[in-house]
Each structure stands twice: as structure tokens, then as C-alpha cells.
């Protein structure tokens, strides 16, 4: 059986009286491609922020194994720096010696012409490409992506999936959250986040566990 690279156990989170996550338990395994879909406001981004360590849960635990790459929904870049300067800054953050892989990603995503442009002058799509590059440039073993292809044109969208395929060849696990997936068959596991719980897509909200491919999920009724 494949090793888990991420385990979420009974995650709970509330904002004031609003309970956003009500006990989310699931795992992501090596080489798997996992999707989490849900309506706007379902708590997907909150879940991913907790998994990435950006937000403290009210309860539950996250176990993460190996190097993580995280691409947040908001394009967190510095408008006053160039693309090249971003790469240099994150090279220092990740403590990596070269930018070979980052350069390859830039070519793969097709924005090498903008290397010396200020990020504040880039289009939304190009900013998103940089956002993705920064999450990947240190060759993570686990990748957490929040709406990663927003603003991409069709060609870039296809290149993105090519990139995901390459990552899985390298044993990387990829978790993507989105409010909408056009090609659900691409995923090994696809979870629905509804009312703060992971729901199996065909279970009408009653099933507590779904497993497709190498992933698994369950919800815990903690209330």
C-alpha cells in the first residue's frame, strides 16, 4: 500500500458562530491526485490553509510527511519585485542552490519573456503561473493547490495538467481544491466538501467513507 504524505484527522474550524469544518478526516497518498470540490464558502480554502499551516484549527490534527509546496488561492506576490527577484527570494526561503527546475517550470508554463518584468505589471494569468512556480520550484513531495488554474487560457490549462502528470511520475502527491472540476476523471480521488464535512459524491451525504484509487476519506460526526 502507498504511503500517506498527508493525514487530516477530525479537523474542526469555526469563525464566530459559523462552523466551517466539522471534523474532516482524510489522507493523501504518494503519487495520488486528489481533488476536493465544494460550493463557494464551503470551507475548501480554510481546509487547505490549515493543511498548509497557515491557519490554526480549533480541533483535530494534521500530519504532513516530506517537503510541501503550497499555492494559495490569493496570488501572494510582491508587486514591487520582478519575476526573477521572486525566484531568488524563494530560492533563499527554500534554501536551494540553483534555479534549474524553476527555469524549466517557467519554460513549461510559457512565460519566460516576463522574467525581468515587475510583477505589478503582469496579467492575472501570468501572476498565477508565477504563483504556481513558487509552489513547485523546490521539488516538493506533496503539493497543495487552491484553484491553481484560475486565469489560465486553454493552452496553459493543458500545460498545467502535463505538469501535474510529470509531478506524479516523480512520486509527488497533488491535492487540488476547486469550486468546479471540468475533468473529474483525471483524479484518483474526488471529495465533496459539504456543510463542513467530506462527502462521498455518490453517497447523498449518508456515506461516511469513499475510496477510489489510492486515497481514502471519512467524516466524523463530532457534534
Amino acid at each position, binding site marked *: 500500500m502507498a504511503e500517506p504524505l498527508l493525514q487530516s484527522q477530525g479537523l474542526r474550524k469555526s469563525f464566530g458562530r459559523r462552523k466551517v469544518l466539522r471534523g474532516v478526516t482524510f489522507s493523501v497518498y504518494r503519487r495520488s491526485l486528489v481533488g476536493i470540490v465544494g460550493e463557494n464558502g464551503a470551507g475548501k480554502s480554510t481546509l487547505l490553509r490549515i493543511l498548509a499551516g497557515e491557519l490554526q484549527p480549533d480541533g483535530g490534527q494534521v*500530519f504532513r510527511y516530506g517537503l510541501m509546496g503550497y499555492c*494559495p488561492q490569493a496570488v*501572494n506576490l*510582491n508587486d514591487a519585485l520582478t519575476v526573477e527577484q521572486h525566484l531568488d527570494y524563494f530560492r533563499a526561503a527554500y534554501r536551494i542552490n540553483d534555479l534549474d527546475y524553476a527555469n524549466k517550470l517557467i519554460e513549461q508554463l510559457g512565460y519566460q519573456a516576463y522574467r525581468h518584468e515587475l510583477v505589478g505589471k503582469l496579467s492575472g494569468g501570468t501572476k498565477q503561473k508565477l504563483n504556481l512556480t513558487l509552489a513547485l520550484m523546490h521539488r516538493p513531495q506533496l503539493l497543495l493547490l487552491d484553484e491553481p488554474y484560475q486565469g489560465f487560457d486553454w493552452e496553459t490549462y493543458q500545460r498545467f495538467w502535463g505538469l501535474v502528470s510529470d509531478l506524479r511520475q516523480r512520486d509527488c502527491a497533488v491535492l487540488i481544491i476547486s469550486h468546479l472540476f471540468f475533468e473529474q476523471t483525471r483524479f484518483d480521488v474526488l471529495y465533496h466538501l459539504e456543510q463542513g464535512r467530506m462527502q462521498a459524491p455518490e453517497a447523498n451525504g449518508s456515506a461516511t467513507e469513499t475510496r477510489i484509487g489510492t486515497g481514502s476519506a471519512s467524516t466524523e460526526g463530532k457534534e
Partner: protein
Amino acid sequence: MTSLSRYLTATRYALFEQARNRTALLLLLLFVPVWYYFYLLLIPSDPLPFLYRATGTLLQANGQELGFISAGLNAITLIVGFMLFASTRKNMQFDRRLTLCGFSQALLIAAKLTALVVVSAIVSLYASLVLFFYWHPSSLPLVWLGFFCSALSYGALGLLLGALVRGELEGFFLIIMISLIDTLLQNPLGNPIANQPVLRWFPSFAPMQLSVAGGFGLHMSWLYLFYSLAWPSGFALLGLLVFWWKTHARSVHIIALQQS
């Protein structure tokens, strides 16, 4: 990659960012000389009483020259406060992302402090040199020192508000109001009771004393340099604590394990 090289990287980009703040640069280039010019044009040279507390001397200082110092402090505090507030607030999420990716918070904080000192030094130097065109104070370096300490105070305040205040307008408004009240009340031109003891607790009090010592050739007290650094130290400490809290990885429930 060593800690020193990561610190230098963060410092370099913090300074790049400040250099690309065109609004602040424009304000600096135009606002400072225009502000002095208005004092030259509109404020009379009549003597005004100013209590120099280091020696307890009640000076009868030239009102216009005293006004130049007050104008310099006012302009510097607004500009440096604005620069540090804007950059801190705008990049809070970016800085958080850097720390999530492994950048040491301590190094980011050290880089921010370095940028604060460098920006304060340069802006104060510019304001002192422009002042020299209008008036030749007895000791320009001492006037600069007062300006520098005041810039540090408001830069650190900008850092604190940038980490604390969500809205851009609220932050700008706070900096403008605090600077106006603080610097105006130190000047006997705007405040006939400027020599009141309570004003000693204001951020611009000690820097004003230093600059007045430089402007009128008075004996400088090192104690006032120490006082001048108290406010920036307090603001910076609070600001960096808030920054640390907002950018640290929530690692309590995250356990990184070795790959088998």
C-alpha cells in the same frame, strides 16, 4: 546558503521595494522643499521662547528657523511613516508565504529593521540637505540626528500599524493625525505652551531637542539621544511582535516526519 546571505537577500528586496514606492519618492522630492519654502515665505523671524531642556535654558530662538526644524520633522515623519506602513501592510501575506516556505522570521524581521534604519537615514539626510539651502544651522549633522531619530519613530510606528491595521485609509489617517499633533505641539509657533512638561512624553520631543541643539549651536545631551530612541524601540518591538504573530506557521498540529 548561509543565514547571512538570506538576510542580505531579504534586506536587498526590502530596500528595492522602498525605492520603487514612487508616491513616497515624489512626496519626498517635492513636499520637503515646498514645505520649507512656505516657512521661508510666510513665517516671520520674530524671536520665540523655546525651552532647551538639556541645559534648562529658555532660548529666544528665531521663529522661522525654529519653524524649519518643525517643518522638517513633520515632513519626515509623514513620509517615512507612510513608506513603512504601506510596505508592511501590503506584504503581510507575502511575508507569511515566505515563512511558510521556510524563510526564517528572525531574518525577515532583521531585514525590516535594517530597511527602517536605511530609509530613515536617507530621508533625513535629504531633508537636512534641502534645509541647508534655506538656512545654515550651526551643526547640520546634529540637525540630521534629530531628524533621523524622528524618522525612526514614525517608521517603526508605520511598521506597527502596517502589521496591525487592516484598512489602508485608517493607517494613513492615524499616521497623519499622530504626526500633526506631535510635531505641531512641540513648536512654540503653533503652540504657545510648547514648553509644557507633558510634551516630554511625545515621540518628537527628544528629536526636536537634538535638532534645536544642532540648529542653534547648543551643547548636545547624550541623554536626549537615548530618549529619542525610546519611542522607535517601543514601536518597533510591538510591530515586530505583531508581525511575528501574524506570519508564524501554525505548527502546533503539524508534525513533519522523516520519509521512510
